[in-house]
């Protein structure tokens, strides 16, 4: 009936247009009349009573409270530390709502009154400067859609386990938004960069005064001082009133609550670029300053802890991204990586942004292993977990972008598996 393009039920993406958006059991239900299925057509109660009026700031339906970030319990020895994860399996498209954008804090969220906030530029500049929030709002701004991914996202997968994991719990430290702000180069030009300045040390105004070092060529390329996220001032958990944003690079370097930019000869060697966010290899040397996030993709539906109710047509869908460019291709396998089908790209393929993919799949009721594999515009192909473990071992867990495998059992239960 449908053109199969890879084993175990993968259907050509050319069939996408003719099929429903969700496609769950589409063939079966079309053979049953509505009346036979018990569907009735009374006027529902919400059509008989006026609802509440407009509100100051919107929120999700009370019937959609599953739309929530998950976060671990606070550690008393580490106040305000920790992270919350985006519910990737419940989202569509590529833009993460601000209230669901993942968070990672090192000493909690500071309660910053923007009128008391300062942005200092100092170090190897002709003229040290200070800017207020109001000052920055008057500059010419740019808007760009970029993903942000924590370097620790998906890290636990290298060590195995987590069969109960969901897309959210295993990979929810990635989100995507339209960021608006002032190019860092504008501000640096105003201060005047001295010739021996090779790095930029960025410091936040949180209780940890979290700092990271950025090479000067990146700082002058596409780094911005972000003031808005998806059109509104960035939320406190994302750095209100301002954050550094380093497109495509590990999330920690996009310092939130930005309060100081210092031009330096070398990297400042902050705790979070030496002790943390470095990767120890099997030979016990450690990679430092691994900046661009790897070419990566993830099937968000079907994904861990979902269950397929009946056989038939499903839309496999997911997200792909790369810190080195745009996504050129996403392939999907239903047989654990033996055969692959090209997925359709839905919408835009922007550089350093999430890209949505989908491919139709007919589940015949037997077990399957679903995988996706991204290739970026520079030709970087997402590696298997096996290749990743051979290359870098599992001593450290940052910067993992290996292929995720979702096992589908013969009763339709979806779990994280290792192949």
């Amino acid at each position, binding site marked *: 009936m449908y053109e199969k393009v890879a084993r175990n039920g993968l259907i050509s993406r050319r069939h996408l247009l003719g099929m429903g958006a969700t496609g769950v059991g589409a063939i079966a239900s079309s053979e049953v009349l509505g009346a036979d299925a018990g569907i009735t057509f009374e006027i529902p109660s919400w059509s008989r009573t006026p609802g509440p009026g407009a509100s100051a700031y919107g929120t999700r339906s009370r019937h959609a409270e599953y739309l929530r970030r998950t976060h671990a319990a606070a*550690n008393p*020895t*580490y*106040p305000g530390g920790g992270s919350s994860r985006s519910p990737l399996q419940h989202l569509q498209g590529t833009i993460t709502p601000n209230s669901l954008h993942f968070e990672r804090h090192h*000493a909690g969220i500071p309660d910053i009154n923007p009128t008391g906030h300062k942005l*200092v*530029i*100092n170090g190897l500049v002709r*003229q*040290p*400067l200070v*800017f207020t929030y109001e*000052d*920055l709002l*008057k*500059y*010419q701004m740019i808007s760009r859609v970029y993903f942000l991914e924590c370097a620790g996202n998906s890290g636990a997968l290298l060590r195995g386990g987590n069969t109960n994991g969901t897309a959210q719990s295993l990979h929810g430290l990635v989100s995507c938004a339209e960021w608006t702000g002032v190019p860092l180069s504008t*501000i640096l030009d*105003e201060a005047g960069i001295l010739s021996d300045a090779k790095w930029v*040390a960025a*410091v936040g105004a949180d*209780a*940890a*005064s*979290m*700092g990271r070092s950025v*090479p000067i*060529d*990146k700082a002058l*390329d596409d780094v911005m001082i972000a003031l808005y996220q998806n059109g509104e001032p960035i939320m406190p958990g994302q750095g209100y009133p301002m954050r550094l944003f380093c497109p495509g690079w590990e999330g920690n370097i996009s310092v939130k609550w930005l309060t*100081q930019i*210092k031009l*330096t*000869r*070398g*990297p*400042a*060697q*902050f*705790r979070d670029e*030496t*002790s943390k966010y*470095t990767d*120890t290899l099997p030979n*016990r*040397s*450690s*990679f*430092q*300053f691994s*900046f*661009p996030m790897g*070419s990566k993709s993830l099937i968000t539906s079907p994904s861990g802890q979902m269950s397929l109710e009946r056989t038939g047509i499903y839309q496999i869908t997911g997200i792909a991204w*790369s*810190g*080195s*460019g745009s996504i050129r291709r996403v392939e999907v396998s239903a047989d654990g990586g033996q055969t692959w089908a090209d997925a359709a790209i839905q919408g835009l393929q922007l550089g350093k942004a999430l890209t949505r993919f989908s491919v139709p799949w007919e589940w015949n009721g037997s077990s399957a292993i679903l995988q996706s594999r991204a290739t970026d515009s*520079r030709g*970087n192909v997402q590696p298997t977990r096996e290749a990743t473990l051979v290359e870098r071992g599992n*001593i450290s867990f940052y910067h993992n972008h290996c292929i995720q495998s979702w096992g589908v059992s013969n009763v339709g239960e979806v779990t994280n598996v290792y192949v």
Partner: protein
Amino acid sequence: MSVRLQTFMSKKFIFLFLIIYLSFSSIVVNSQERVRLGTPITESQLAEFDLIAEPDGTGLPDGSGTAKQGKSVYDINCAVCHGPDGEGTSGNTVIVGGDMQSEGPPLRTVGSYWPYASTVFDFIRRAMPATAPKSLTNEQVYQVTAYVLFMNGIISEDAELNARTLLSIEMPNAKGFIDRSNIHSN
């Protein structure tokens, strides 16, 4: 010069003049439109604000301390999370011991992993103690930095740590890192 050539020249000059005028006027317009709202300041104003201590010594403040002096600062402010001897209490709080060459995943601590002594000073000053960061004086930060280095067997109990001596400390894992900062895209 023939009339024809003169006409050609004048056209060419008008053209050149237009190009020069247009590019010049656009420069003028740009510089007029460019916002310059930063308020000039001096580095000396930032003495309390700029907490960055770099491996080359830039930003290390005046003051000094020994491990002997640092023990009481540590016992009062740090031991509750890091344990009386730096052995840790939970999670990420172990700061003493470890060996990068040990069997299995190595325990990575200040002594076994951190490549620069300046980072110990910098991190304690900006972020510790976790419940009251930036509550220690520079003198106390030197003292407790010395104590953490002493517990790791890197300096002696009486060694005076200051902006000069801190630079001479070679951390055990200083050569253990591979700098990948030149890779901006894969």
